């Protein structure tokens, strides 16, 4: 089982990093968006290796089913796909910055002594997640409601912004 997880992780990690790189490096915007879908998908796989089954499905549902679709819609509506997505004038500083970030984070991650609890957490997570979200005292009910209001506001805002006069 452990070996399986390891293999799964490495496969998923390589694919996700490769697809993320493809997103960044490809000039064809539509293909970049498709690689984004692949990246989202592998991230969902990584969630499964992390025993977060509900989150994995939510990832597919939200990112692949909604976010990616919206982005592709936007690409189609802006008709800029043929012009592609060239790199801008900040290519070099951005690269230096990204590498700096990467080095810093990797150093921090490897240099920290993490307190890891052994064993595999309980699955399925759906009901325990629900209990964490909505437990009687001090759950996340209020943030949840605010998130709902935020979504509604975003929905209406998007409609108002894009509506033809």
């Amino acid at each position: 089982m452990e070996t399986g997880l390891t293999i799964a992780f490495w496969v998923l990690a390589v694919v996700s990093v490769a697809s993320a790189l493809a997103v960044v490096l490809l000039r064809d915007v539509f293909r970049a968006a498709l690689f984004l879908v692949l990246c989202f998908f592998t991230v969902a796989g990584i969630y499964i290796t992390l025993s977060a089954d509900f989150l994995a499905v939510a990832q597919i549902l939200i990112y692949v089913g909604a976010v990616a679709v919206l982005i592709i819609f936007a690409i189609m509506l802006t008709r800029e796909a043929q012009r592609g997505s060239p790199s801008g004038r900040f290519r070099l500083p951005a690269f230096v910055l990204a590498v700096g970030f990467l080095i810093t984070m990797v150093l921090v991650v490897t240099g920290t002594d993490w307190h890891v609890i052994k064993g595999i957490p309980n699955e399925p997570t759906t009901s325990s997640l629900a209990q964490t979200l909505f437990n009687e005292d001090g759950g996340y009910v209020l943030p949840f409601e605010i998130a709902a209001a935020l979504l509604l506001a975003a929905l209406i805002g998007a409609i108002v912004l894009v509506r033809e006069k």
Partner: protein
Amino acid sequence: MVVLQQFQDWLANYIPSWLAYLIPLFVAFVVLTVFILLMVMVFIYLERRGVGRFQIRRGPNRAGPFGILQPVADTIKVLIKEDIVPTSADRWVHLLAPIVVFVPALVIFAVIPFAPTAIVADLNIGILYIVAISSLGVIGIFMAGWGSGNKYAAVSAMRSVAQMVSYEIPLVLSIAGVLIIAGSLSMRAIVEAQNVPFFLLQPLGFLIFFLAATAEIQRSPFDLAEAESEIVAGYNIEYSGIKFALFYLAEYTHAFAVCAIVTALFLGGWNGPGLPSAIWFMIRVLLVFGVLLWLRSTLPRFRVDQLMAFAWKGLFPLAVINLFITAGEMIAFPEFPRWLLFVNIPIAAILIVLWSGFFRPAGEAVSFERYGRGVGKGLALTFRHLFRPPITVQYPEERLTPAPRFRGNMLVWDEEACIACRACARACPVSIIDIETKKAEKGLTVEKLEIDFGRCLFCGLCVEACPKEALFMSRDYELASYKRGQLVVTKEQFIAAEKRPSAYGYPEREAEMPPQTLLAPPKEKS
């Protein structure tokens, strides 16, 4: 699935555990795929035959007994067709699109509970998995639409994606009602929770789910994406050969999946006395598919704005209301007793009637006359058709007799009566009658006669112009040849041809003609 588990355990003794885990899964996947593909063939056959029956047609009946080999023939045909990739297409996207559409449709079946023991993976998030996976197909449609480099395909992709995204919302919301009652996301638990099928406890949810799912798989009356009259054939317009076959397969796999999901969520799944549970399940699946066929063969297609309005203004609010009602009932009666069906069915009826009052599909209020009784009458008519003998004939073994004054495709020339006056050639508005005469002992005879039926208008002026009874319209209606040149009929061919003159232009002969056979018998006046 118990068998799967045992297989995995047994294999683990011989090979590494992760392989032992994957190989049986793979085997199960292959078995399932084969089963699904077989079922899809059954579905295709049923669809073609079924729609035929609903329309009092015969349907395919030549390949094998009752035409059951028709899907096989179709498959072979489509596989050996040329695979065309347009030059403006994005080749890789174009190639991958059918796969991206087909694979999600296939993997949905991983969690479909055909029987208590026949589930590939009884995921505890089963229904959520289905919803998530089915949203993947959208990407494939986008790819097909965009990658084809065709305007119609792109428009169709946009349409169908908008449609699928829109209908996904009422779909998921109506599932939520079931989940509240069942208290689990696992498909198996949902089926087991159904002492009473949920379509009785959740009538409104069932209707919404059924309609939304029909729209999700883009079947009639929601088949806008392939509205032939508007955008030719949809996002798969530029596909042929095996790629098109994949789309075609995906469509029926989706239909199968939806029928299975409806069965599992609302119709009680495998529950049933006597027969094995898998049989019960398949019976229900076929019944649901039958209803889909029935709807398809009855209802006309939605207009695109009506389609979106129906999702957002019709189904979505109703689904939200249904969710609220169900949640409220759950709070009031945590056991969710059976008698609530006597509450929920009237509530559903009232809500539908009330809500339709807000809904103006064609700029006018929804009238019961049109949308209640009208649709009902239509459905009843198609249902009655199911039990009528087909009115079509087994052509070419059987043929219809045309009307007495039928203007058929080839003229009948009586060389005996002809006086070579050339009146017909002068009368012809398109001058296709080429006639040469020479002097004979008595008057003239026809030296050469050529008529180009490729250009004939079948106006009948030549027949009317004939002073003798020498030229007739024909009663034949088959005019086909492999070359245009063969449509030029010569004097010898006229003489050799079987003479089946029509009574056009000769009213006195009408009585001699055989009576016309009609597809639909004339209505008896009461």
